[in-house]
């Protein structure tokens, strides 16, 4: 079928601001939006730029706004978008070119969460694994799925208002460690999140949860971190 794709274009070396260009191309309904973009880049306009790698929703490269909502281009099929597709970069990060945003601020926020396992105790004497029950493991399973695609953070109205907010993705990363029974730095992370630009900036707008391509219940994870802060209970 023929589809109409309206794409946000911006060339930093020529344009003062972005504009929209419309392309009419042939596509199959089982094509991914990413396939459509690849086709346009390959056959219509080679200058179109976007990030991609895995092409099946596990690397987090190609978050963009498709028909007004954050998604991964490789996980969105033409079948679901219909014949009119608008593709724009994610909101709230500087734009480098076309659909490519500057991800540095996003990763900076992630890095503030001490996003690594901290346990200063010596490893078990026999050199084997630290034990963890299946329930303890299940406690943070959901947030280990995060691929740092930024769909959530760049859909959050609080983050749009203020890029200093750490954003849902960072809190998801914090959640992954705070609720890991083997980790020992929950207190440090909670104290970082208790700052003004921390978790208080979340007003349960819920855009993040809807945007997450890994179907992480982001708002719920944030809520759990808030309650951990209030009650001090980590299980």
């Amino acid at each position, binding site marked *: 079928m023929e589809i109409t794709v309206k794409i946000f274009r911006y060339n930093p070396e020529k344009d003062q601001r972005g504009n929209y260009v419309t392309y009419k191309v042939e596509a199959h309904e089982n094509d991914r939006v990413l396939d459509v973009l690849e086709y346009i880049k390959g056959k219509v306009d080679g200058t179109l730029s976007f990030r991609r790698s895995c092409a099946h929703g596990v690397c987090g490269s190609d978050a963009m706004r498709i028909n007004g909502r954050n998604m991964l281009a490789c996980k969105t099929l033409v079948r679901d978008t219909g014949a009119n597709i608008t593709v724009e970069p994610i909101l709230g990060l500087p734009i480098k070119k076309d659909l490519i945003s500057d991800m540095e601020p996003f990763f900076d926020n992630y890095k503030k969460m001490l996003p690594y396992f901290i346990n200063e105790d010596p490893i078990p004497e026999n050199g084997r694994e630290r034990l963890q029950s299946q329930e*303890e493991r299940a406690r943070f399973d959901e947030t280990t799925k995060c691929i740092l695609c930024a769909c959530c953070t760049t859909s959050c109205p609080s983050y749009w208002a203020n890029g200093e907010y750490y954003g849902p993705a960072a809190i998801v990363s914090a959640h992954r460690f705070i609720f890991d029974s083997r980790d020992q730095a929950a207190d440090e992370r909670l104290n970082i999140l208790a700052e003004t630009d921390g978790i208080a900036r979340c007003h349960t707008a819920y855009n993040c949860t809807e945007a997450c391509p890994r179907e992480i219940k982001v708002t719920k994870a944030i809520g759990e971190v808030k309650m951990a*802060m209030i009650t001090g209970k980590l299980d």
Partner: protein
Amino acid sequence: MTTKTRKLSLKQRGMMSFETQMWIFTRLSALAMYALILFALIGALVMGARYQMNLADVMRWAFMPNVSHVQSTNIPDLAPWMTIFWKLVAIALLLVATAHGVHGLVVIADDYIASERGRKIVRFISMVMMASMSLMGAYIIWTS
């Protein structure tokens, strides 16, 4: 394999921060307002509002149990509505609502203002606002 519970102290979990405290205050004050409103509503019904007041007037009283909110109704005897008790309830509701509302404004401002200085100014204005609103409101309630 057994699971051991992990618990953090107040300080460890960030409960000492202004934001966390205000977050919990916002929820608790919301519940408190519900409780006070419900209380005023029941009070009004007990005092005979069912026969002498229309819905709008009852709601007005419920949201702020201040006698001036019933003066324009058909209630024949204002005495039970004018007690110090109700004045205290009204003032409590006022204080909770002002604190909640003004902090709400701070939250909104914090969303948009990220500079250290800007936030300090907002905090200052909000303190002034909260104090003046509370004083003026309490004065009106007390003298009405």
